[in-house]
């Protein structure tokens, strides 16, 4: 039995303590287990999702383009975490997406393979791309069925040396006097309904894997009020909050037979056909990455222009609906802060302020215009831009990034290239909160690759 009662065992038996039981914790634990380490995962929720626990722990405030009910939908407090609502989109970040990171694609490549294996994906999508029309690269996502840990808890509970404490919320960290390590953890236990302080020995590691909002909340709450919170000496925790602005159905293409998507490699699996700007167009877009998904669609004769275009193309005319996903620059003013009131674990509640900048939306518009030009030059195809879907209805993808940013300069980041909180020997972060720049790709695969990398690093450590 992998489920334990923390009041009976304490933290002593464990080499690594992880806050949060989502896909980051899974990838991390898989590697630590393989290295023979003993791991304890703390999870606020229980084996099955409880809407009351969810509501009590994630109530928050929000301003900007994302509401106070938006963020909690992607901050699931139950075993399996946000994998319960994950749609299964996978694509690695490309080299240019690591622009603001102290590491590059090559550092993550072996771990991308681990993450893909854990998600049961065939591997060809990791390396595949093909030239498409002028200005574009064809780079489909892997869209195999998503892994929902809540439906398959044994993937975690069967890992040797890995235990789970449910109803246990990491609610604060106590720094050592020299602030070079964490020497204690405050954990709220739902059973007795109280907070308890557990000492941490210097050999023990603590990893925050509680989501982009949760990781910031734990660090910002880790203060006695008389000095900076743990990891927040430079006032960077919670800042650089990023999303992936999505403009659904923001375009249409009507094309003839001569528009052919490149062939996929053997064993690719189920693709989401998608194009991204090539190097030249990426530069013209000002370094904002964009993906345009080409989804097969029925012709819409109720639109007189579409009907006119389709009849000119002829009997073979077909239509695609376009959805755009784009990059949002890291802005320190888009941030998570503490606010009034406390959650049941005693932590102060959070407030998120996050606005989609205009340049991210312009990049979508310019990318659509470029695609229109390339389609027209290549043959019979016409494109429609649905302005309101870009400039009025853009939303996020539930991708919460940047709040514990990775960087080599402690004045401008929270964790270093090894996901270690600057200055703290035994405190680490796993999850998309370490992303320094976000690209457009859904972050699950990358956050699992980072967690697997961290698991191997901690597995090797004495």
């Amino acid at each position, binding site marked *: 039995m992998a489920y334990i009662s923390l009041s009976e065992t304490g933290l002593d038996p464990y080499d690594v303590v992880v806050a949060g039981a989502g896909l980051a914790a899974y990838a991390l634990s898989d590697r630590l287990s393989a290295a023979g380490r003993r791991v304890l995962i703390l999870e606020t929720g229980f084996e099955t999702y409880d809407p009351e626990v969810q509501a009590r722990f994630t109530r928050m405030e929000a301003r900007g383009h994302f509401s106070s009910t938006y963020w909690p939908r992607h901050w699931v407090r139950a075993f399996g975490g946000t994998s319960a609502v994950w749609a299964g989109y996978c694509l690695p970040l490309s080299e240019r997406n690591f622009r603001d990171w102290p590491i590059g694609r090559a550092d993550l490549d072996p771990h991308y393979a681990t993450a893909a294996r854990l998600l049961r994906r065939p591997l060809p999508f990791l390396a595949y791309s093909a030239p498409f029309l002028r200005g574009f690269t064809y780079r489909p996502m892997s869209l195999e069925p998503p892994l929902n840990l809540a439906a398959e808890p044994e993937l975690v509970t069967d890992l040797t040396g890995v235990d789970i404490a449910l109803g246990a919320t990491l609610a604060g960290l106590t720094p050592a006097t020299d602030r070079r390590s964490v020497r204690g953890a405050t954990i709220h236990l739902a059973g007795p309904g109280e907070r308890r302080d557990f000492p941490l020995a210097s050999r023990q590691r603590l990893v925050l894997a509680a989501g982009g909002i949760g990781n910031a909340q734990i660090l910002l709450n880790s203060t006695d009020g008389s000095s900076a919170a743990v990891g927040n000496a430079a006032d960077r925790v919670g800042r650089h909050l990023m999303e992936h602005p999505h403009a659904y159905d923001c375009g249409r293409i009507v094309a003839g037979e001569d528009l052919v998507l490149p062939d996929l490699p053997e064993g690719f699996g189920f693709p989401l056909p998608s194009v991204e700007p090539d190097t030249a167009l990426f530069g013209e877009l000002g370094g904002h990455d964009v993906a345009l998904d080409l989804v097969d669609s029925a012709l819409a004769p109720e639109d007189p*222009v579409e009907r*006119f275009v389709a*009849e000119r193309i002829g009997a073979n005319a077909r239509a695609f609906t376009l959805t755009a996903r784009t990059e949002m620059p890291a802005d320190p003013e888009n941030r998570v802060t503490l606010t009034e009131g406390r959650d049941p674990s005693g932590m102060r509640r959070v407030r998120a302020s996050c606005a989609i900048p205009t340049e991210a939306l312009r990049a979508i518009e310019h990318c659509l215009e470029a695609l229109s030009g390339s389609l*027209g030059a290549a043959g019979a195809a016409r*494109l429609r831009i649905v302005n309101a879907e870009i400039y009025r209805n853009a939303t996020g993808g539930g991708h919460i990034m940047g709040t514990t940013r990775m960087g080599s300069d402690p004045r401008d980041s929270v964790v270093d290239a090894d996901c270690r909180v600057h200055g703290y020997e035994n405190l680490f972060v796993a999850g998309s909160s370490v992303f320094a720049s976000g690209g457009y790709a859904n972050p699950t695969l990358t956050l699992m690759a980072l967690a697997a990398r961290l698991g191997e690093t901690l597995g090797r450590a004495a």
Partner: protein
Amino acid sequence: MSGTGITRRHLLFGLAGIGIGGAAFGLLGRATRAPAPAPWVPRGLAEDDGWLLPPEERAAFEAADALVESDVFALRDAVDLPGGDLEALRVRSLSECVAACEADGRCEAFTYARASHPQPEKRRICWLKSEAAEREIAGAPDYVSGRRGGWGPD
């Protein structure tokens, strides 16, 4: 002065050569450079439909909304004729609407909504009418209406 020395004359010829060569390449470049393609423009009417079309295609599309002549109907531009609907057809042009009403013995009048109509679901809809409403609505530039046998006294 030795045969291999560089004189002022050599220098002048050299400079002149560079100048002439540069001008020749410049002219060659200008002659062979492809003309910049005309930008594709969205429609400049009341409601942008978002389609990026070459100008000649846009013109062909809009031509279908231009006023036409009919032997059977008296057409009035910018007039909506509410009520009396027999049928609503989705058509390609005003002339297709006129022909549909002509071919239908019950059809006494019609109203056609241009592609510029602000409501997308009404664009290029042709309403065949048994009897028109008593009062037409003028000053509605997205519509064209016609009556069999004229409009009577205004």
